């Protein structure tokens, strides 16, 4: 929602974590996330342990916290949602004394639920960021292939990643052109102009796909990609 989708999350390095096989890292991340989700939220100290594990992995990977923390803004909308729950949840109320001498009455079970959402979501984002920061996209794709992901799906993902920068830069130039002509792409008043831009972007992307396909055919594509050269 509010946060932009950055996709340059990789933090270059040569640590043990960077060198570990990608398919093991993906399985590790999935296992970790499942365990975190399945942990009862009342086991407060256990979540501290999970956080220590993640911080340990990040330290081992020599990825500075100053790199990871700003990229966690992606979960801010959900923290806001979690903060709302104590006010709307059912069950007995508790009064919290707030600074300034006034009291806030909230649902007790809602408070626990909000804690659970916030801590599990945060641990999940931090764990995903660790994978993204320590694994090159090409390695993630190879890891997925190792994990017997459908070959065609891995191919589509690799094409999306390959052309993501091309297509977003295309859009960036079109937006710059719109702005230089006095159009504000975010304002509903200028949605028709923005929509024509997006329509043109679709046609450009689609036609680029057709050209890429022809180029692949001329190089002997037979439905399978050769080993990804890195």
């Amino acid at each position, binding site marked *: 929602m509010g946060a932009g989708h950055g996709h340059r*999350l990789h933090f270059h390095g040569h640590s043990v974590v960077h060198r570990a096989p990608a398919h093991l890292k993906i399985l590790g991340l999935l296992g970790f996330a499942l365990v975190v989700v399945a942990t009862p939220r009342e086991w407060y100290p256990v979540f501290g342990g999970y956080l220590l594990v993640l911080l340990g992995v990040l330290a081992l990977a020599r990825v500075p916290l100053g790199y990871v923390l700003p990229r966690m803004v992606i979960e801010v909308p959900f923290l806001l949602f979690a903060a709302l729950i104590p006010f709307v949840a059912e069950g007995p109320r508790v009064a919290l004394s707030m600074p300034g001498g006034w009291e806030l009455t909230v649902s007790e079970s809602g408070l626990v639920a909000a804690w659970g959402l916030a801590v599990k979501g945060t641990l999940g984002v931090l764990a995903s*960021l660790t994978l993204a920061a320590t694994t090159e996209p090409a390695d993630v794709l190879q890891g997925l292939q190792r994990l017997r992901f459908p070959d065609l799906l891995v191919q589509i993902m690799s094409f999306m990643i390959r052309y993501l920068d091309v*297509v977003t830069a295309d859009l960036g130039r079109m937006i710059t052109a719109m702005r230089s002509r006095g159009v504000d792409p975010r304002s509903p008043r200028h949605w028709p102009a923005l929509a024509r831009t997006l329509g043109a972007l679709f046609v450009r992307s689609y036609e680029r796909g057709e050209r890429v396909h022809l180029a692949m055919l001329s190089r002997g*594509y037979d439905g399978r990609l050769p080993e990804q050269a890195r």
Partner: protein
Amino acid sequence: MHVPDGFLDAPTSVATGVVAAVGVGVALRRARAELDDRTAPMAGLVAAFVFAGQMINFPVGAGTSGHLLGGALAAVLVGPWTGALCISVVLLVQALFMADGGLTALGTNITLMAVVGLVVGYAVFKLALMVLPRRIESVPAAAAVGALVSVPAAAAFFTLLFAIGGTADVATGKVLAAMVGWHVVIGLGEAVVTGLVVGAVVASRPDLVHGARGLRSARRPLVTQEAGA
């Protein structure tokens, strides 16, 4: 918009994961039947387009912003199967490479946006086309109606999942009212942008619009154009 880890309990997450895997499997097969060996580059580029379209944020008010979801848009432009595949790939890439949407919630996100949102959006689009005059000029309006319904439909399905495997003790009626109410607003924006984008493509390259196949432009002169066409 993406559901993070821990929103739904583990059994529900696993169940939606299975639904998503089956859905993606079917979409893969059907998209391949349609695109043949063009599937990988075409679906990849359309997924990159959807991703780029989602990057434009619109202010919604109260300091928050929303963006295009693109489910109905993708279904109308490239067909429901390829569209579902593209949205799934976008969600996969966002979860694995960009930490956007939890990995355990990936099945939920694919089920909500690529399966429910897209199936409902495309079905409503087809129904609207039946009601509207059989002309290519009807396609943008039908796409807008599909987009309008698809967003609250996904929100309503999320409420159902939340009632089954939610981790907070909030009355289902309250969640439903809040989710659907809020998403009708989002759906309105989605509908306007979807309709305008489809209109722009229909005006310039109607041959590329899957949802416009078999439809002709009105032959009579002096037809008024759709807004944005």
